[in-house]
C-alpha cells in the first residue's frame, strides 16, 4: 500500500469536489446575473449576511453583485419540504437524483486541472483511457434523467425523460465521432498526454476546428442546455423530468446539470484549448516551481470559466430548436460531418507520414 498516494488522492478528491460544488453554486448566480443583464434587469442583489452590510464600500458592492445569493439558495433547498407525491415508484424516485449527480462528479476525476504541484500531478486519476472513461460515464448520466421521468408517474416528466433519452443517445454518437480526429492526431487516449502533445505542437483547436465545433454543439445537447433543453422545456413540459421533485432531490438534479456543464467545459479546454497551458510567459511546459503550478491551475480554471460564460450566454441568446430539427441536426448533419472529418484527418495524416 502506498500511503502517500492514498493521502494525496483523498486530498485532491476533497478539494476538487469542494471547488466543483462551489463553482456550481456560483455558476447558478452567474446564470441569473448574466440573464438579468441581457434582459435589462438587475438580477439578485439583496441577499446579505448581517455583518457584511457594515463593511464600507465593499460590503454594499458585494451585496449588489449578489455574491451571497448562493448561500440563501442552498439554505432554501435544504429547508424546503421534501415532498414525495402519491403514486411515484419510490425506489427509482429516490435513486434517480443520485444517478444523475454521480456521473457528473465522476467525469472530473480524469481531467488534468493543472500540471504539477511539487511532485504531485494535478489530476485525480491519470487513466490511460481517459476519454473512453469520460464517454462511458457521461452515458450513464442519461439514466438519472430517464429514471426520474419514469419514476415520477406523471406524463410531463415521462415525456421529458423520453426526449432526453433520445437526445442524449443521438448526440453521444456525434460527440464520440468528433473526438476521433483528435485521437488520430495525438495518438493517445490519456488526457494528460493530449495536453502534453499540445504543449509541443500548439492547441488542437487549430488542427481540428470541425471536431471542436461538433464537440461543442454536442456538449450543449448532452448537458441539456438551450438551444437543446428538451428534457426540461418549461413551456412544453411544465418542468420536464424533475417536475415532481422538490427540496434537496431537485437540488441534486440542478447540481448535476451544472456539474455536467463544468465537466464539458473542462473537457473542451483539455481536448481543444491546451488544458493548463498558455503559449507565452513560459507557461506551456509542466511547472518546475510551486508558483508556476498554481498559475497553471488558475489558467485552467479561467479557461473553464470562459466556456461556462459561453454556455450561459448561449442560453439567453437563442430559442429552442424543434424536436425534429434537433434530430435532423444530430443525425443528418453532425454524424456525416463527423465521419467526413475523421476521413479527412486520416487521409491528411496518411499523406504526411
Amino acid at each position, binding site marked *: 500500500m502506498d500511503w502517500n498516494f492514498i493521502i494525496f488522492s483523498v486530498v485532491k478528491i476533497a478539494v476538487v469536489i469542494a471547488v466543483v460544488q462551489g463553482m456550481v453554486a456560483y455558476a447558478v448566480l452567474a446564470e441569473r446575473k448574466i440573464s438579468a443583464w441581457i434582459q435589462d434587469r438587475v438580477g439578485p*442583489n439583496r441577499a446579505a449576511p448581517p455583518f457584511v452590510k457594515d463593511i464600507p464600500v465593499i460590503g454594499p458592492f458585494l451585496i449588489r453583485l449578489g455574491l451571497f445569493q448562493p448561500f440563501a439558495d442552498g439554505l432554501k433547498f435544504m429547508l424546503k419540504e421534501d415532498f414525495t407525491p402519491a403514486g411515484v415508484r419510490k425506489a427509482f424516485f429516490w435513486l434517480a437524483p443520485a444517478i444523475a449527480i454521480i456521473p457528473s462528479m465522476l467525469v472530473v476525476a480524469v481531467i488534468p486541472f493543472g500540471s504539477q504541484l511539487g511532485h504531485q500531478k494535478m489530476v485525480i486519476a491519470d487513466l490511460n483511457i481517459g476519454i473512453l472513461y469520460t464517454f462511458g460515464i457521461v452515458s450513464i448520466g442519461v439514466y438519472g434523467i430517464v429514471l426520474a421521468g419514469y419514476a415520477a408517474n406523471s406524463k410531463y416528466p415521462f415525456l421529458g425523460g423520453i426526449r432526453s433519452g433520445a437526445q442524449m443517445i443521438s448526440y453521444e454518437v456525434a460527440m464520440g465521432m468528433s473526438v476521433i480526429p483528435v485521437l488520430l492526431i495525438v495518438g493517445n487516449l490519456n488526457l494528460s498526454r493530449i495536453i502534453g502533445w499540445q504543449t509541443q505542437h500548439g492547441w488542437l483547436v487549430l488542427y481540428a476546428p470541425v471536431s471542436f465545433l461538433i464537440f461543442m454543439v454536442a456538449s450543449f445537447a448532452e448537458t441539456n442546455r438551450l438551444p437543446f433543453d428538451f428534457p426540461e422545456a418549461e413551456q412544453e413540459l411544465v418542468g420536464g423530468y424533475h417536475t415532481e421533485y422538490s427540496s434537496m432531490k431537485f437540488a441534486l438534479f440542478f447540481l448535476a446539470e451544472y456539474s455536467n456543464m463544468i465537466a464539458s467545459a473542462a473537457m473542451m479546454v483539455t481536448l481543444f484549448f491546451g488544458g493548463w497551458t498558455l503559449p507565452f510567459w513560459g507557461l506551456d511546459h509542466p511547472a518546475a516551481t510551486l508558483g508556476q503550478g498554481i498559475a497553471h491551475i488558475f489558467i485552467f480554471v479561467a479557461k473553464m470559466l470562459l466556456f461556462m460564460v459561453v454556455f450561459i450566454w448561449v442560453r439567453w441568446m437563442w430559442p429552442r430548436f424543434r424536436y425534429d430539427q434537433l434530430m435532423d441536426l444530430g443525425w443528418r448533419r453532425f454524424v456525416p460531418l463527423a465521419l467526413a472529418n475523421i476521413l479527412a484527418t486520416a487521409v491528411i495524416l496518411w499523406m504526411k507520414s
Partner: protein
Amino acid sequence: MIVNRKPLTLWERLYLPAIVGGFKVTARHLFRSLFGGKTITMEYPEQKWAVPPDYRGAPYLVRDQDGNTKCVSCQLCEFVCPPRAIKIIPPGPVGQLADRPNAEKIPKEFEIDMLRCIFCGFCQEVCPEEAIFLLRDYSFTGLTRAEMIYNKEKLLALGGTVGGVRKWKQKLEEAGEQEDFPVKI
C-alpha cells in the same frame, strides 16, 4: 390561414447569421445594463411606483374640515361590502353622540379586515356622508391576521382629512349628467 414561408437559403441554414445577430443583440443589452446602468427594474423598497390619483387602494375613514368624524354609522358600507370585510358596531340608544352638528350618530367601532377587502370601492360609492375613501395605499404588511384588522382609530389616522363639505355635490353632478344624457327617442 396557411402562411407561405419562403425556403431558407444555404447561408441561413448554416445558422451563422442567426448566431451573429443573436450575439450582437444580447451583447448590446448586456453592456448597456452592466455599464450604462439602463435597467428597467424598479427596485421596490427604494424606488416606488407613482400611484395614479384615481387608484383604488386601501379604504380609510376620513375626517371633515373641522377634524370631526364624517361617518354616521349608517352601516350601508357594511351591507354592500361583497367580501364582508367591514364590521360596524353602532353606538346604540344611549351611546356616544356625534362629534359634529347635523349628525346623530358616530360608530362605536369600525373595523376593516384588510385581508378580506377586495378594494372594489363599493363602500366609497355607497357612502351617503362621503366618509370612506379608497386612498392610494397599496402595501400592507403584518405578522398576524389580527394585525391586519384595522380599527376605527387606525382608519381615521390613516385616512386624514378630506377638506370641505362635499356632501351630495358629486351625486348631484352625476344626476345632472344623467338628466341631459343625449338620448334621442
